[in-house]
């Protein structure tokens, strides 16, 4: 089982986001960055598939700044075999990232290409299906259950009110939703071993982003509202207010 897992460096979900002086980007100072949480799930799945098969490899690939080496090291410590950083500046749009990843992945031997369902910075939710389309591979997104046997995959993906079942022959693309598995923490032994694993860094020239950011703003502040009262006695007043707003 040879898998490639695409991972992205993103601000931690707790991070306070401040808009930079240019009004179009995020001020990165003091922001803690981590591996995108869904990508941890994708990586965990690849590691388990390799362990279950008893053979194969897990390669992690990231497009981003030099600092992305940190998350690639984390991935190696979790158990990935080798890592590639396609180094670039700026914040490319989904299609530009997908093209860089497809160019890298297209030339490699692989049974499965795994992604997180969404990167929690741009919240794009588009790179996995784009890469699949560019490489003409079958694809199941937002997967919560994956079975692989004899080169055949059955994936259950989350849809409104249920699960959609998708089947395909490998190679294929899967994007991971939380719940697919519980990602492991890197062990001390893993962290030591990671230092000796290959991490290749290459500069890439990305195509121009077709989606251009005009401005970035803070969300309109929500007025904190009224506490209408305490306990069950306050219920009639709450219901009156909801009726006033034509909500009931």
């Amino acid at each position, binding site marked *: 089982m040879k898998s490639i897992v695409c991972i992205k460096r993103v601000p931690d979900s707790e991070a306070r986001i401040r808009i930079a002086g240019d009004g179009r980007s995020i001020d990165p100072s003091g922001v803690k960055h981590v591996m995108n949480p869904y990508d941890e799930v994708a990586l965990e799945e690849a590691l388990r598939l390799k362990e279950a098969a008893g053979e194969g490899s897990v390669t992690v690939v990231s497009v981003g700044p030099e600092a992305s080496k940190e998350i690639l090291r984390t991935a190696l410590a979790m158990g990935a075999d080798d890592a590639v950083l396609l180094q670039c500046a700026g914040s490319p749009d989904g299609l530009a990232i997908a093209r860089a990843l497809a160019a890298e992945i297209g030339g490699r031997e692989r049974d499965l290409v795994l992604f997180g369902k969404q990167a929690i910075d741009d919240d794009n939710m588009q790179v996995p299906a784009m890469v699949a389309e560019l490489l003409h591979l079958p694809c199941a997104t937002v997967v919560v259950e994956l079975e692989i046997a004899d080169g055949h995959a059955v994936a259950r993906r989350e849809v409104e009110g249920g699960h959609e079942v998708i089947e395909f022959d490998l190679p294929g693309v899967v994007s991971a939703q939380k719940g697919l598995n519980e990602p492991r923490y890197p062990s001390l032994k893993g962290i030591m071993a990671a230092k000796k694993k290959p991490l290749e860094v290459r500069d890439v020239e990305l195509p121009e982003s077709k989606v251009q950011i005009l401005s970035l*703003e803070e969300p309109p502040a929500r007025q*904190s509202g009224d506490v209408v009262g305490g306990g069950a006695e306050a*219920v009639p007043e709450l219901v009156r207010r909801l009726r006033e707003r034509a909500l009931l």
Partner: protein
Amino acid sequence: MPAGRVLAFAETRDSALRPVAGEAVTAARELAEALGSPVDAFLLGPPGIAREAAGLGAYGADRIFVAENEAFSSYAPDASLRLCAEILGRETYSAIIFPASAQGKDLAPRAAAMLDRGLATEVTGLGAEDGVPVAVRPVYAGKAIARVTFTDLPALISVRPNVFRAVKRPGEGLVESVEVAPEPSSQRVKGIETGERETLDVSEATVVVSGGRGMKDPKNWAVLEDLVDALGEHATLGASRAVVDAGWRPHVEQVGQTGKVVSPTLYFAIGISGAIQHLAGMRTAKTIVAINKDAEAPIFQIADLGIVGDLFEVVPALAAEIRRVHAES
């Protein structure tokens, strides 16, 4: 040069249009008005779906392209792309609008890669500048709002459910059928498995009742189910991650950064503290009601209305009062 038309993808399931289809057409209509151009829609479904399609005229579709085939009763991504390409060969389009539903979020990026065009997902606002679409979308889990434009047209856009409320107006669309052969695809969509009963999805309900760790025990959900019942058929249950992680509720109900983003008209946060990752999923709700025994809980900072109190007293009283006023009117 006149602006191109706007094309909307009208999602179907089980031989019927889904509610988000009307929303996509409504959003397309809004954008088309800013551009001064007509609206077309396209859809696939099993034989007979054309009858349903005519209804899209009421949301503002001037023309509706329909491909019918037995094979299209399940989601058919490859055939959908072929239909889309066929339509784009006929007319000039400035934008293609998809719903940011499970299907739309899977299909739109495939279309963007096929057409080599940019895609803005989960859009909450639409307009145009100099004949080019401008889309507004939350990023960083809603901690920032981006305005984006596109270097090439058509611009691909998916719209967040419940934001562009489907608006009916007088008018009929012209239905045109298009042949799309169900060629073998590299993947088979085997259809959808639902639980014992198909519940309204939390991302599509207009009223959401979410419970958190303050519920104490999964058995206590009967209290929330009763409130949902009192609120009516557009209401459904949601949950915080704490209770999903505890195995009390299924992940499909989770609201927040690693769950679903919801924009209902009315959101109840019951026994939920209001952690930043939870707020990421519901801060765009029109009205937020918090019920929590801790007056200092952060949820009260963004709630429009709140009651400080024990949920086990407040929620049953609330369900009873709602039933009482409904019975009166």
